[in-house]
Structure formats: C-alpha cells, structure tokens
C-alpha cells in the first residue's frame, strides 16, 4: 500500500460525508516539501508501471525495480536522503522508506568510522579517552572494514 497517509485522509473525508462537489481535493501535507514529494510520486508511478508490465513475473519486476532504483540513487545527493526518508515516513509509504533506508545502510556498509562521520557530516563529541574506551570494548566490530 502506497501513500497510506493520503488514503487515510480520503477515508476520513468519506466518513465525515464531506461533499464539496469540486473536481479536485486539496490534501494538506505540511511536513513534506515539494522536491522529495515529486521524487516519491515518480518512484510510486514507476513501481506501479513495472508491476503492471510484469504482472505474472515477480523476478522480472524485482530486477527492473532494482535497475530503476540504482539509476535513481545516482541522481540523489546524500543530504537529500534525509528529506526523502522523512517524507516517506510521514506519508506512510513503506516501500520507499525501506528503499531509502537501505540506501543509507549500503553507503556505510563495511566502511571505517572516519568515512561514516564524513558521509553523515557528523563530528565526534566524545571526551578524550571515551572514544578509545568504546573502540576497545567493541574491537571485534571494527575488524575487516574497507579502505576509505
């Protein structure tokens, strides 16, 4: 189910028997900016189109969707991922939320802490020695990371 928040709005409208007679309905989305919304709508349309084209072949649907997702990620800047994740979460669009979260996870998989900090734009706020203590405690989790 895509855009559950919007569907909920329509369901609530019907329950309240509001008949405006207008051909267009305005749905307030105060927490979503236009740019991420546009990307989510395109993603949703593409997903539905691919599903319709490959109605019987689930593997083909998955393969095409993966290709489209790889292309999409090339055009999206890392900072934009925050807005996309927040928008997908607010709109209750599970597939898009999973996709963008997975993209963040893939970007930091097996990378050093320094790379991840740079990627996220984070700065360490640990006291002297605190970070060393944590590194020692979880030494086994820092083995086998990629070169930066």
């Amino acid at each position, binding site marked *: 189910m895509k855009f559950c928040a919007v569907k909920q709005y329509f369901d609530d409208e019907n329950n309240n028997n509001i008949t405006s007679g207008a051909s267009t309905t305005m749905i307030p989305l105060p927490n979503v900016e236009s740019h991420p919304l546009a990307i989510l709508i395109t993603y949703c349309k593409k997903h539905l189109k691919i599903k319709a084209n490959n109605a019987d072949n689930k593997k083909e649907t998955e393969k095409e969707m993966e290709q489209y997702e790889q292309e999409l990620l090339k055009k999206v800047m890392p*900072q934009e991922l*925050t807005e996309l994740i927040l928008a997908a979460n607010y709109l209750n669009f599970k597939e898009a939320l999973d996709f963008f979260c997975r993209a963040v996870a893939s970007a930091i998989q097996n990378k050093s802490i320094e790379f991840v900090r740079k*990627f996220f*734009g*984070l*700065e360490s706020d640990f006291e002297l020695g605190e970070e060393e203590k944590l*590194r020692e405690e979880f030494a086994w989790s820092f083995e086998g990371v990629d070169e930066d």
Partner: protein
Amino acid sequence: MLRHSTSLFDKAYLSDLFIYFFHIFILQFIRVMEDSSTTNGEDWISRLPDSLLCHIFSFLSPKEAVGTSILSKRWENLWTLSPVFIFVIPLRLTGNYMNKVNCFIDYVNRVLAHRDGFAIEKCNLSCYTLHASAHLYSWTCAAIACMVLELTIESELFRVGQLPWCLLTCKTLVDLKIHGRFVLNFPTFICLPTLKFLYLNSVIYGDDASMQKLFSSCPVLEDLVIKRHDWDGVGIMNISVPSLKRSIFSLSLRSIGNYEYKVVINTPNLEYLEIDDYMYEDYSVNSTPSLVEACIQGTCVFGLLDGISQVKLLALSGDAMQSLHNIVPILPTFHNLTHLKLGIDDNVGWELLPNILQTSPNLKVLTLSRDL
C-alpha cells in the same frame, strides 16, 4: 602572482591573467568534486529521529550496527534499539577464548538490559560454548519480555538445558526455532496463539502427552519441522494440528525399552509432507485430499503410503523403494499422481518400478535421480 603592467595587450600580462583564472577554476573544480563525495560538512543525518535511525540499523549487520556506537554521543547506545538481534558465539574462538566469551556475554546482557521491554522483531541466540549457553534461560526471558516475533535458540547438544515457561505462553511469537537438548515438558497451561512456524531439533519432550499438548497449543501453526536424533521420551508421535500446511520429520533415533512406537498424523489441511524415518513401523495417516506433494526417505510402510495415496507429486528415495518389497501385494493406487521422482542408488528397490507404475494410472512425469 600577477606582474604589474600598463597595457592590457601586454602578452605576458594576458598570459599571467590566464594562468591566474585557470588556477581559480581548477581549485573550484576540485572543491565541487570533493563536495559531491562528502556533504559540505552539514550534519544531515542528525535530523532523523531515533526510530528512523533504528530502521536504517535493521539493514546493517549486527557488527556494523554496533560499530556506529563511536560516531558520536547520540549514537553511543542507539544501536541497542535496533529491532533485529543476532547473537552468535561460534564453537571455536581464536585467541583469548574466555575473554572473548565474557565480552560476548556482557554485550548481550547490555543490549537486552538497555532494551527494557522495547519491542524486538527478530532475535537469534546461538551459543555453542558451555559458559555462554548457561545464560540462554535469562536471555530468552528478556527476549520474550520484548514481545519478540521471531526467536531462534541454539545450543550445544551434550548438555541438557532448561527454557522458561514464559516461552510457551508468549502471545507474540510467530516463528520459533529451538536446536538443543532443551526440556519442553511443562505440566501447566501452555499456549502459543500466533505461532505459525515451529522448528524443533533434539528437544526433550518427556513423554507422549507432552508432545501432543505442545502441538495442540498452537492453533494457527502452518509449518512444523521435527528432528529427533536421541531418545527424548516420546514413543507415540501424535501430530493432530488442523491448521498445519507443511511438515518435515527427520527421525534417526533407535528404539529403546518397552515403549509403543507409532506415528499418528491427523492434519486435514496438509499440503506438503516430508519424512526421513528409519525407526517407526506403525503409521496411521488420515488421508487428506489437500496433500499436493510428499517426499519419503528411509523406511516406507503401508500405513504411510496408504495415508498419502491422494498425493499429486511423490518422491521416494532408494531406501524407501527397497522397503516396499514387503507391501508389494497391497500397494495402494495413486489416482491423482502426476509426477513421480525416484532415487537411484545401489539398492535394488527400483526393481519394483513396474509395480509402482501399475498403481499410478494418471502418471505424466517420471524422474530418476541420483540424490534424494
């Protein structure tokens, strides 16, 4: 540095100007290239709330999730809120063995304590070392308190362990796997109202009634896998589960003492059955029209074959074919059988191929396979 000149048409001046602007252009270009791989230093990830960061954790391996603890103070304990926990301590550890095991025990205790009842989706507790597996009882209690949906408990097989009663009254469990010599014999009320997948390997049931009680306490069970290798107190296996759709039994134990040995299968909605059994000789199977596929390895007795005679796809191993010698005169007719797969090995069971073909009037596909 630009040299001072009085004329714009001075060649040297123009050349310097060109070099100067080219230098600026290159610097800007480098800055743009760097920016596209980093993020301008802007901390964009911190705008996400804890719940969404945890969602990102669910796509990382447990090792990577733990590694985020040193990113910054906010991240120090964030990873403990991840909904999926895979705690595996292997059989062989290199280096300082006891130190590593103790670190692991502390790590699991810390995670579960920090969780404080906050929901866990999936939890895997695999401990093959004696020292760590002693903690499985308390860790299971903690996972149940966190309303876990999928739980796997694995332990070494040379030690009998206990599991808490709350495991068998958990209202949230959907998928449960237990591998180890754990005693599942509770005289009191047990109920697993949401359990759909159950895998039991080397579990100790205590007696026949205990096993039957366990399965009848799972009203929506769909998948059941039972593996029995050593004596566990059960002589009569009674599987009466109306909701069951798929079941796999692997029985390689030897009969002992004065027990009655029988398998009773009463599953009106069963679609798939796989049996690998060299022990039981008395089968009572309520034939179900819903059965689509069956795979028989080990001894195949009349009661079993008769019970699955409505099947559409059947696979028989070489050993199973061999055991059919005893029941050739009374082979049931397989009216719905369209696909038959037979295991080829050194046994002479395949001599019975003509008999089997005679009792399968609607057969379309016959496959002979080396491995079954």
